């Protein structure tokens, strides 16, 4: 077993605990630990990504329990890509938080940040739906703390909305899981895929309900219409580094939709094939339209960035909804792009806020801010990327999406929605940008807001923009890797084989056939009693094979 797979889940909580216990009052130490941990996580994530490129699906059995009985972590190309994306975003966000002083405005920013990373990595790596729920809760409870970091009445009240909405989502998740367990008797994704495919046609009512319930849960996370209402206030009011990290949180919903609705309720499963895609597509188109209209109508930069995030989720879900390998490739490319662009946009908005009086981010003429030109250039780049204009990766992403839905029945409608909303977004960003950066209010007290010219925020934001540029320049190799990823996602048999037929599972099978208890360690199979490693006679788990 490759123990590196669990490292992204183990490292952040350990560092987080050290930060809370040992470095509670020393911000400098907290920063050192936090940066070291995120950089190490990025290195580990890239290592895992390189490993996954071979096409081998890595399986980590927690506690050495084979698949349907124990919880497994699964590292395939998709999860490795998402883990790497999160880790790299984490580095940029933590640098920005330090550079802008956001981490000093309240307690425990870095500890909460580490726990948040743990939850996100866990959600991407787990191969068990109930474990997915648990990691959702881990990342949510950390995000509640981060969301209200720095305090303030409006932020707290937006935080309450956010918490209530997500608690509702969690309850719905539990209802869905209960229904799935009642219908199939398992919660392991690979095992579920086997059992759902075997269900007799007359007996699928429950699993169809569960599939729709689960889609609603992921739609809450992915901010799909009409379950998006929590997002604008949350993202606009959250501290900027947190909002930037949240850019990857909506993608968790998208990831979960890709994972569950290709593996468990895939397009080849007769029971659910006709309910997921046809519902997802129109909802995604409306999400895109609402998001981009919100960009046009926003009166504050924070809201503008939040609605741009909703719009990008709409485009992303349009690409997911057909559930074909080509469309999924486009979706994955757009997912990488929109995470970086969305995060960068939140950071740019915060740079404007920090340089104005009273953190005012309204889209209206104000005294000229410090470093106006550089920040305007960043905003321009983010606007181009989010709206999908050439030459940045947003354009390529949208082109891939347009190309991928070519064979869809509603192709003209989809094209019209994507192209028109792009125009709306261009107008919205142009209006906001020219109003904020060019129309200067010649107030006498222009010199009042002069923040320290810290370089780190520019490094962090510039890093994200550089990521977008790199995604554009290396679009060929990236899409090549992503099409291999989506091919692997749709090859569900290899996933099931990898999870269900590990060496340990075969050992358990052999021990069961021989009527012997399963030895604790693989090497000591058959001589468990004499083994000096442990109490030896660990209870056999084959009894439940039913």
């Amino acid at each position, binding site marked *: 077993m490759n123990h590196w797979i669990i490292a992204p889940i183990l490292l952040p909580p350990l560092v987080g605990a050290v930060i809370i216990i040992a470095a509670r009052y020393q911000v400098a130490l907290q920063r050192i630990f936090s940066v070291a941990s995120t950089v190490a996580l990025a290195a580990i994530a890239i290592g895992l990504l390189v490993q996954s490129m071979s096409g081998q699906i890595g399986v980590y059995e927690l506690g050495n329990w084979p698949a349907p009985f124990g919880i497994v972590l699964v590292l395939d190309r998709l999860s490795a890509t998402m883990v790497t994306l999160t880790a790299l975003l984490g580095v940029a966000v933590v640098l920005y938080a330090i550079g802008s002083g956001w981490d000093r405005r309240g307690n425990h920013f870095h500890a909460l940040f580490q726990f948040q990373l743990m939850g996100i990595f866990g959600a991407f790596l787990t191969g068990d739906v*109930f474990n997915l729920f648990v990691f959702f809760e881990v990342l949510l409870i950390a995000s509640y703390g981060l969301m209200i970091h720095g305090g303030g009445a409006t932020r707290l*009240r937006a935080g309450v909305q956010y918490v209530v909405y997500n*608690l509702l989502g969690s309850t719905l998740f539990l209802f869905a899981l209960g229904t799935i367990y*009642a219908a199939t008797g398992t919660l392991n994704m690979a095992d579920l895929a086997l059992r759902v495919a075997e269900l007799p046609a007359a007996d699928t009512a429950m699993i169809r309900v569960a599939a729709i319930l689960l889609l609603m849960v992921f739609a809450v996370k992915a901010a799909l219409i009409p379950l998006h209402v929590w997002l604008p206030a949350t993202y606009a009011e959250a501290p900027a580094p947190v909002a930037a990290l949240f850019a990857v949180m909506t993608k968790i919903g998208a990831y979960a939709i890709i994972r569950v609705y290709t593996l468990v309720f895939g397009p080849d499963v007769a029971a659910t094939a006709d309910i997921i895609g046809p519902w997802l597509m129109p909802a995604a188109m409306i999400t895109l339209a609402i998001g981009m209209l919100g960009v046009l109508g926003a009166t504050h930069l924070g809201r503008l960035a939040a609605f741009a995030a909703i719009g990008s989720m709409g485009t992303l879900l349009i690409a997911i909804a057909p559930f074909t390998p080509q469309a999924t490739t486009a979706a994955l490319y757009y997912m990488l792009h929109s995470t970086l662009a969305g995060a960068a946009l939140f950071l740019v908005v915060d740079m404007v806020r920090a340089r104005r009086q009273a953190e005012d981010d309204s889209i209206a003429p104000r005294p000229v801010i410090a470093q106006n030109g550089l920040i305007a250039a960043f905003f321009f780049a983010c606007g181009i990327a989010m709206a999908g204009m050439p030459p940045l990766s947003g354009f390529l992403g949208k082109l891939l999406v347009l190309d991928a839905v070519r064979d869809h029945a509603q192709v003209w409608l989809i094209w019209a929605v994507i192209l028109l909303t792009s125009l709306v977004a261009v107008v919205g960003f142009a209006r906001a940008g020219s109003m904020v950066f060019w129309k200067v209010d010649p107030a006498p007290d222009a010199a009042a807001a002069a923040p320290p010219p810290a370089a780190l925020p520019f490094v962090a934001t510039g890093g994200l923009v550089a990521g977008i540029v790199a995604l554009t320049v290396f679009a060929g190799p990236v899409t090549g890797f992503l099409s291999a990823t989506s091919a692997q996602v749709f090859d569900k048999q290899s996933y099931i084989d990898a999870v269900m037929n590990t060496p340990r599972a075969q050992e358990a099978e052999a021990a069961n056939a021989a009527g012997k208890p399963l030895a604790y360690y693989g090497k000591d199979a058959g001589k468990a009693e004499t083994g000096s490693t442990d109490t030896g006679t660990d209870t056999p788990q084959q009894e439940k094979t039913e």
Partner: protein
Amino acid sequence: MEYLLASAIGVLTAAGIYLLLRQRTFPVILGISMLTYAVNLFLFASGRVAINLPPILLNETPTYTDPLPQALVLTAIVISFGMTAVVVLMALGAYLSGRTDHINLGAAPDADRDAGTEVGK
């Protein structure tokens, strides 16, 4: 027994959703608690309702009740307990600093964004 359990889950869910749609934080939190009770019972029922059976396979009894949903319920209870505590504290903080317990952000004049400004009042 099935009827009792099913109607209990249904009534709790209905009451929870009704309370959740209220405007103020306190009924909303009560509604969330109701919903978590409902979902805990529902998870129990997902392993089939069995009476007077051990949750473990023994030699003397031929059948057993499924232990896994009980483990799931335990996890769900712990998580929902923690989450409820968090939301109560956050709602209290929001009420104390915002002087209103309306869920809706537009229901009260937008207070200051800064943390420090509220302290002196």
